[in-house]
């Protein structure tokens, strides 16, 4: 099968639906701040980042964790990459751009967001069985989320600079 359906439609699928609905609601409630091009760039970057991480340490020879019901790629794994992960980074970038923080406060924001995401991951694994750890721990995820959010801010700054500067002819 190209993409497997879930074995049982239970807690992990409902967690995905609820968390996605909450983040998307936030996304639509916030006033529009970025152009569609910026949003698309952030989206594709985060989709790729999440998928690359899972396809690197979530498969053999490392195989440190499984996402959802099966070790194989499920429809819901794909939906998580596309609908759940990118809005989290989008919200961090939104906060970064809106608050215009100093370096110290920016560092605090990134650490705080990484901590919240880590706790959500821990809850998703413990109560909703979204992740099954086989050598990974949610405590390792904290520093990873810090790097992910920093990478997002760097990419956002790069995109802003690039859009303000160079124009190209078709």
């Amino acid at each position: 099968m190209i993409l497997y359906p879930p074995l049982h439609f239970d807690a992990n699928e409902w967690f995905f639906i609820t968390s996605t609905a909450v983040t998307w609601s936030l996304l639509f409630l916030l006033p529009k701040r970025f152009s569609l091009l910026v949003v698309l760039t952030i989206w594709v970057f985060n989709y790729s980042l999440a998928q690359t991480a899972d396809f690197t340490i979530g498969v053999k020879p490392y195989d440190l964790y499984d996402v959802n019901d099966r070790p194989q790629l499920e429809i819901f794994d794909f939906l998580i990459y596309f609908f759940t992960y990118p809005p989290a980074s989008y919200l961090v970038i939104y906060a970064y751009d809106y608050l215009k923080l100093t370096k110290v406060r920016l560092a605090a924001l990134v650490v705080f967001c990484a901590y919240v995401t880590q706790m959500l991951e821990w809850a998703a694994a413990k109560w909703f069985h979204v992740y099954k750890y086989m050598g990974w721990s949610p405590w390792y995820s904290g520093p990873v989320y810090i790097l992910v959010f920093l990478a997002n801010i760097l990419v956002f700054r790069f995109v802003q600079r690039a859009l303000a500067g160079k124009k190209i002819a078709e």
Partner: protein
Amino acid sequence: MYLLLLVGIISLAALLSIRLLKAQLHPIEILSYWVFIASIEQLSFIIVAFNLKKVQLVTNHLDFWTLKMSSLFIIPILFLWYLACMHRTGFSVALKLLLTAGFILIFTLIDYVYWSVKLLVFVHWTLWQSSLLYLLIMYAALCFSALYRLLMKKEGILT
């Protein structure tokens, strides 16, 4: 080990070639197409190997990183070159079709090299299917770049 080193050197050369691409593609196009193609390429490989079990997954760490570097650097940057060629207004349709065939041949040759050194173990897979898969990735990349360029035009970045 030697293969990992060789793929590493080719990846580095591919990374350096990005400087030349800047004349054809906008920096945010390079970033977006790169991550898009890398994710589509990895997704298709995982589906073929993990879900459809048509290709055997490598369990050796060095082999894994050799394939991973190829998926993250060599293949996406080659695709960037392909897209740069496709967006060149000076190229005729016939030349673009010829280039498409040429790039598919290059991608299939890469798979052939990995297959011949046993990095890729085909179970129910052939090089023809590899070519077809790369054609599909090419199509997805062209669709994505068309959409991206449309948005760039709307924002006045592409004139």
